[in-house]
Every structure is written in structure tokens, then in C-alpha cells.
């Protein structure tokens, strides 16, 4: 029996297999390199921080310098307050801007607005802090929770605006036509039909933006400043997890380092929860469509 000229020789076949598995190996290594840092982060946070996560950490204020113990209760609440304020300040502008882009603006105006939003997305977060410092902290003579919320809110605007626009454009034109054909005014059609149909997508965009800003430290340094006590007034400085981590991490005390790790672990857990929420929301969306 003669060999077919199209069949490779055994040596050649072996060489080809070797090449193929080499390439596969490289690709697997790259994929691992992408997810390894995540596991490293989680590993270190758990190893260094988990043991310090006790009841006190969640319920107590920081102890005065030099004293052992205490917790970050005020920073956790402060972060939640700041994120809520950022949502209140930033999300309406983001959503209305996205609605404008998707439903109203002219092509030319939209191009400029999108360009501006993309540039804003790239503005370093410390710059936001400095701008809000000039806008709110200097005129009102003091650091405040308001200023921190505004700084974070401003960072949310372009993010929310672009995701809102994207999900609104995905709503089929036929729903808009159906509503208009009922003699419904355009703005009502947009609110009740288009926005409602895309609501999950918009919510997803808001949560993604929250996850992006939850760990921001720089914009808060010049605005919310931080606070070692409960703040009872939004016009006063307020604590936040990233600020507290920053302050404790730079300190010379072991006990504070320990708590900084615990704070980082809590912050990371918050961000993972936000991302999981996004996944769940998007999965529901693809199921119903």
C-alpha cells in the first residue's frame, strides 16, 4: 500500500502537534495571568484582613491614636452615605443625558456630547477632587459630605450617560411607533415605554458606575476629608472606607495596619457584590428578551 501524498509524514505530524500544544499552553498561561491578580488580591485581603473582621470592626468608632481596638463603623456608614449622595447627584444627569442622546439630540450635537463624555471618563479622579474643592469647599469654607458626594456624582455622570444611551438605543423602534400611534405624547412615550423597557439595563449601568467609584480615594481627599467620629451633618467632613484605609495604612501602628486590611476586605466585598448584582440583572435581561 502506498502512502497518500496528502498525508503528513509521522515526524511532521508530531512537530505540528507539539506546536499546537505549545500555543495552547501559552494561551492558557495568559488567561491565568489575567485572573491570577484577582485571586492574589482576594487571597491577601482574606489572609491579612479576615482575622480582624470582628463585631467591633462593624460597630465601633476608631480608637484614639495609640489605643488598640475600635472599628470602622463610621467609615462604612460614611461610604454608604457618600455613594447614596453620588447616586442622587449624578444619576439623574446621567440618565437624562442618555435619554437626550438616544431620543432627541441631532447627530452633530450628539457627537460632541459623546466626545465630551469620553473625555470626562478619562479625567483623573484626583482632578475631580480638586475641581470640587474649588467649587464647593472653598466657597462654603469647609470640607463636607456634600462636596464628597458631588465629586463622586460627577464621576458617575458620563458612565451612566453612555450606558443609558446604549440600552435605550436597543429598545426596538416598533415600541416607540406603537405608543405614538396611540396618540401618546412623545415624552410620555419615552418615559413609560422606552425607559421602562430599558430600566434593568439602566439600573445595571448605575451599579457599574457605583462599583467604579466605590473605592475612589483621591476625589474624597479634598472634599469629604474623613472623620474619626460619626458625622451628624452633611455639611461636615465625613469618613469613608477608602479614606480610612488610606489614613490607617500610612500610620506607623500595627493595629491600624490590621484594620486597614480589614477595611480593604470589606470594600472589595462590596465591589464584588455590586458586580454580582450586575451579572444577575443582565442574565435576567437576556432571558426575558
Amino acid at each position, binding site marked *: 500500500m502506498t502512502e497518500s501524498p496528502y498525508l503528513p509524514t509521522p515526524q511532521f505530524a508530531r512537530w505540528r502537534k507539539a506546536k499546537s500544544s505549545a500555543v495552547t499552553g501559552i494561551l492558557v498561561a495568559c488567561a491565568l495571568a489575567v485572573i491570577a491578580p484577582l485571586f492574589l488580591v482576594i487571597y491577601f485581603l482574606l489572609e491579612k484582613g479576615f482575622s480582624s473582621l470582628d463585631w467591633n470592626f462593624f460597630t465601633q468608632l476608631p480608637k484614639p491614636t495609640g489605643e488598640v481596638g475600635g472599628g470602622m463603623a463610621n467609615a462604612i456608614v460614611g461610604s454608604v452615605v457618600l455613594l447614596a449622595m453620588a447616586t442622587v447627584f449624578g444619576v439623574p444627569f446621567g440618565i437624562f443625558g442618555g435619554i437626550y442622546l438616544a431620543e432627541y439630540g441631532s447627530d452633530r450635537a450628539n457627537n460632541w456630547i459623546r466626545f465630551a463624555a469620553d473625555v470626562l471618563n478619562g479625567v483623573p479622579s484626583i482632578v475631580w477632587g480638586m475641581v470640587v474643592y474649588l467649587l464647593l469647599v472653598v466657597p462654603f469654607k469647609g470640607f463636607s459630605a456634600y462636596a464628597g458626594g458631588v465629586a463622586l456624582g460627577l464621576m458617575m455622570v458620563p458612565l451612566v450617560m453612555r450606558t443609558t444611551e446604549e440600552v435605550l438605543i436597543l429598545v426596538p423602534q416598533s*415600541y416607540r411607533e406603537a405608543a405614538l400611534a*396611540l396618540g401618546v405624547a412623545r415624552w*410620555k412615550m419615552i418615559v*413609560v415605554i422606552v425607559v421602562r423597557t430599558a430600566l434593568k439595563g439602566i439600573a445595571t449601568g448605575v451599579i457599574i458606575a457605583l462599583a467604579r467609584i466605590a473605592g475612589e480615594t483621591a476625589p474624597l481627599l479634598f472634599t469629604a476629608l474623613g472623620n474619626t467620629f460619626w458625622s451628624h451633618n452633611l455639611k461636615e467632613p465625613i469618613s469613608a472606607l477608602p479614606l480610612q484605609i488610606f489614613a490607617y495604612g500610612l500610620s506607623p501602628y500595627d493595629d491600624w495596619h490590621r484594620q486597614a486590611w480589614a477595611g480593604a476586605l470589606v470594600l472589595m466585598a462590596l465591589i464584588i457584590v455590586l458586580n454580582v448584582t450586575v451579572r444577575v440583572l443582565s442574565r435576567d435581561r437576556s432571558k426575558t428578551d
Partner: protein
Amino acid sequence: MKASPAQARTVEAGLPAEAEEVAFDIKNFSLWYGQRQALQDVTIRIPAKKVTAIIGPSGCGKSTFLRALNRMHELTPGTRLEGSLRHFGEDLYGPGVEAVAIRRRVGMVFQKSNPFPTMSIAENVLVGLRLNGVRDKRVLQSRLEESLHMAALWDEVKDVLNRPGTSLSGGQQQRLCIARSLAVQPETLLMDEPCSALDPLATAKIEELIQTLRERYTVVIVTHNMQQAARCSDRTAFFYLGRLIEFGNTRNIFTSPSNPQTEAYVSGRFG
């Protein structure tokens, strides 16, 4: 190009008798998409409380014509029109006339059924009323039942009114869309190939429903299905290349058309 005398005569012959009430009185109507003319010098009087079918090969301007009747074409940027269009005497394009008000009187059902995915069956039917400010529960409930009855859907959905509109079958969804249009109590219902995505059984149901609608509404239906036009319309208008070629009683159009192009089309020789 001017209409030839023969064409003009056949168009005249199709005009409703003087005594008949006219729903749409349209004179010298032309429409452009940008530079491209889609309708040329259409003159037609569509009778009230009758079913008028619009037939013609794909791209001849049927949808364009229909969408001009409730100003839906205004959603397409760059359109322009000429001529006079009146609906029960009122100038559709008169100064100060709002498209929103026109569309409440002239409803539309689309080729692809499009119930709102976030709403239940009942909410879908009532959305037009609710968004136009009707709050009275008794009014809403009676409109809900009445519209679903008119759309021949009540018996099938009366126990599942809170299920999503999108949970229904294709034919039911289309009837739901008809009910949704009827709920705002229009005088005229425009339908753009409402059965083209449906199976024969669902199509038969909708055709039957159109027969009952003509008692209370003026119906203008675009169809590419000539049997459908023959079965369920009183008048038929044949469009070709953006012109109205012939308009008359459906029976005449299908048995003894006066224009050779109409004859060729209805006998299936082109289109």
C-alpha cells in the same frame, strides 16, 4: 407625468357616490423621502365605515401612503409632502393641527405585533387611555372588556389578564395590539399587513374580526395577499410605482378591472 385620461376615468369611477360619508378625502397627494419621490399625485376618497384594501407590489408606496394618514411618516426625518389630506373634513396637516391629536382618532396596527414587553395584557390594552389621563376605574374596566371583545380576544384572555402581553401566541398578540388601538376609541383603524407574520388560522381570525370592525370603524388595510383583499374589503386601491392606478369596488377590481396593469397584478402576472 400627468395621469392619462384612461387612468383618470377609472379613478373617477371608483369614487364613492355622493351620499356616502367620506373618511379620508385626499387630493393631489405626493410624498418625498429626501430627493426620492415615493408617492405621486394620489387623489382618493376613502369611504367611512367600510374596509378599504391597499394592494400593490412591494415598494409601491403602500406603507408610505398609510403612514401619511396618521402622520406616522413624520418619524422618518427628511420627508416632505404636498397636496391636501382631510379626515372627516379636518385638514390633517392644517396649521396648529397636532399629530398626537390625529393619532388618537386614526389608530394603527403594525405588521409585526408589538405588545409592550413590560406590561400585562390588561395594561397593554389600557396604556393609551392611561397615558391620555383616564383614571376612572369603571371607565378603564369597561373599555378593557369592550376592546378585548371587539378584538375577539376576551374569551381567550379573560382569566389571564395579568399575564405579560408577550406570553400570548403570535395571532393573539396581534389581536391584543388591535384591542390596544381600539381602546382609545379611534374613528379609523389603519393596518399595515397585519397578518403577514401569522399562520392561516390566526389570519382567518383577524379577517373575521375586520368584518365586525367595519360596523363601527373605518378600516384601511394594506395587504400583499390578494385573496385577503378580495375576502375582507369593500373597496380596493391598487398602487403601482408610487401612483394610485385604480380604485373601486373590490369585486370590480378583482373581476373586471379597467386598467391593464391592475388586471395583470390581480391575475398574478407580476408583483
